């Protein structure tokens, strides 16, 4: 669970934390529809210092009462209702003290009046009420209306600690700002774009499917160039079919009506790449690419839905999120098609396109097999690790494609014929 957020915490607040023998606590808040969800991370030993004994079993009424009474929110003079969801212990790492046991407390805070969700007094003094040398740094991890969707896009709200001169622990005044649906929507558009940009498997599926889209089929083999307008029309149809497919499952999945199991979907996505790689090698389903694209679109959409389900949004925000997220996906897809297809069209007019097509199909096929093995076995292999490493150099590949296309254009060889 330790991640960049902690790095940021240390960069910003190391003055507060560095002097401590044990790291301070870290509290992450998520603004949901009607409540605030939070996780508090704290060194187990400091919790033991606070209660004056070893913690033993944490899932007892004592700890539920302890955390409920030390994690409080107040707004308009009214206390919120705090409930403790679960308490866990995990071993974690810190640069100063090395490995240590960390307690994770998952909680919910519900205001009496949900309109007041964004402005409240966070009266948190777990451990600190007793161990006055301890401190807690507070983050917003998720706030849809302000475009905050993980702890990388956030800054700490502040630090709760003893104010030495007064001897008091002042609560944190939380003012999240109203935010807007527009901010939330745009954040989802960029999430959708990120998802395609970083989702190497989605990208590879689409590109592999488009690899033979400019070619005619003759005697069950890929033959020559189909013509620019025909090719373009075909490409638009394939992409649209894929979009319709993944939109359907994205909507179904992100509403939470149906929960798709992650692992089989991830495996199926890898299979979809293998299938389109085989198709790029020899036409398996000529003329039926639309159905394949739509069918596998359904699978990819299930994976997209996973990113939205965890956000736990209300209906209005969810609808905007689905729309924004999908729009982001489409924009990124379109961008990739716009910068790739012209080169494919130029290349496919040429005999040498066969090498590009077969080479691409083999590459995608190997990648797909590596991913299938990785996702079935649950552990990365050398090929999937290598793919992870080179996924950042997609622009280099595109540049290579462009050079190849330009070379072939000026060589003016006769069209590909198998």
């Amino acid at each position, binding site marked *: 669970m330790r991640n960049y957020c902690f790095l940021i915490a240390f960069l910003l607040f190391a003055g507060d934390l*560095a*002097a401590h023998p044990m790291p301070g606590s870290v509290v992450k808040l998520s603004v949901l529809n009607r409540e605030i969800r939070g996780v508090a991370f704290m060194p187990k030993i400091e919790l033991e210092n606070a209660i004056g004994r070893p913690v033993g079993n944490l899932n007892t009424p004592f700890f539920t009462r302890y955390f409920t009474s030390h994690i409080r929110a107040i707004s308009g003079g009214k206390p919120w209702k705090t409930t403790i969801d679960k308490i866990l212990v995990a071993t974690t790492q810190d640069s100063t003290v090395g490995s240590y046991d960390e307690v994770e407390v998952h909680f919910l805070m519900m205001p009496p009046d949900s309109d007041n969700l964004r402005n409240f007094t966070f009266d948190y003094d777990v451990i600190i009420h007793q*161990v006055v040398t301890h401190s807690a740094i507070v983050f917003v991890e998720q706030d849809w209306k302000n475009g905050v969707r993980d702890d990388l896009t956030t800054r700490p709200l502040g630090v709760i600690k003893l104010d030495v001169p007064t001897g008091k622990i002042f609560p944190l005044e939380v003012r999240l700002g109203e935010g807007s649906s527009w901010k939330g929507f745009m954040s989802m558009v960029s999430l959708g774009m990120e998802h395609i940009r970083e989702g190497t498997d989605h990208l590879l599926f689409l590109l592999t499917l488009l690899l033979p889209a400019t070619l005619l089929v003759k005697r069950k083999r890929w033959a020559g160039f189909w013509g620019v307008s025909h090719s373009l029309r075909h490409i638009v149809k394939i992409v649209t079919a894929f979009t319709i497919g993944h939109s359907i499952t994205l909507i179904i999945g992100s509403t939470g009506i149906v929960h798709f199991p992650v692992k089989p979907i991830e495996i199926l996505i890898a299979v979809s790449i293998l299938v389109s790689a085989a198709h790029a090698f020899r036409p398996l389903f000529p003329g039926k690419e639309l159905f394949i694209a739509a069918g596998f679109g359904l699978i990819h959409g299930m994976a997209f839905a996973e990113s939205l389900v965890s956000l736990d949004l209300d209906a209005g925000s969810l609808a905007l999120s689905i729309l924004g997220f999908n729009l982001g996906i489409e924009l990124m897809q379109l961008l990739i098609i716009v910068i790739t297809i012209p080169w494919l069209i130029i290349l496919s007019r040429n005999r040498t396109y066969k090498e590009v097509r077969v080479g691409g199909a083999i590459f995608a096929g190997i990648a797909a097999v590596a991913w299938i093995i990785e996702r079935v076995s649950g552990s990365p292999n050398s090929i999937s690790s290598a793919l992870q490493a080179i996924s950042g150099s997609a622009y280099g590949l595109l540049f290579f494609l462009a050079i190849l296309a330009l070379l072939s254009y000026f060589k003016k060889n006769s069209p590909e014929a198998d």
Partner: protein
Amino acid sequence: MIRSKLILAVVLLSGLLGSCKKDKSANSNTTGSTTYNPDPVEVTGCAIQTGISKVVCLSDAFKATLTSSQVATLQTAYSSANAKKWSNLPQALVQSSNKRVGLNFGSMTTTQIQYAKALIKAVAGAGADEGWDEQQQLLNADEYLGANGGSSEYGAANYYIALLGTPATTGTFEIMFGGHHDAFANTYKDGVLVGATPSFRGVEPFGTFTWNSKSNQPLQAEQAAFSAMLNGLTTAQLATAKLNATFSDILVGPQKDAAFPSTPSGIACSSLSASQKALVMAAIATYVGDVADAAPITAKYSNELDNTYISYSGTTGLVTQNDYVRIDGPSVWIEYNCQHGVILSGNHPHSVWRDKKTDYGSN
């Protein structure tokens, strides 16, 4: 391989330089020692000097052993921003904006380190297990840590010396020395020591250990003096002195400047007997005695003793985890805490001496 050759070369070269300078090396212990932790030299040229003249003379002698780029790293214009860059952590673990300034022993030759140590020795107290002896023992402790589970981030090579301002009989300068578990800060103005704090002392291991052919027991005198001070109180006085809060560290560590409790806690020394007061002064002496010019500071703290409070948390033995003791006066602030070990198992102390009025020489 290259590193060991380099060390050999440095040792040979420094031996050569040392003989040229005709300065007598003090009994150099080699057992368990490294190139970065030699004993200080007797700088004969400064032997007849006293007071501030001696400090300036030793600073100049030290600088004379350095290259011009080393001098530029060692000595910068006085800046309170740089003075505040001290820590109890090894340099590698200090957040970038607070990293110590100056020259680290790891970038110096053995001879250069010997001259640096001669300067610190002269401005530190002369008592056994206090002052310079304590500084050398803290270096030994970190060398011991480095050799017993600590990484290369530990050890004398990671200790820093800095001169903020040019040592002279007029003007302001600070001699800063520190590393893991140690911060020494003497600020001078027009030839007078105007601040000897913030001064951090901690040690791991906190048992007697042998290093450098020497028995080391830094901070045991501090722990014993605090414990004697608390155990000298009656049961009723102890109850008044006891704090309800738990301390897993000190309260006003590095970068927590000028933030002392506005109301003191614990028991006022005005209510103590003469012998109990003497125990408080004895505990204070284990910190004030770490500087050579201790007398005026001791006199000030003694004058303010009736308005000074002592308090504690945990047990009076001061060796158990979370044991804590504090001396809080109009000027003096000393706090000491026992916490669990990081590199070694077992507890170890962290402590800080601050002066509410003259931290950083009031700059």
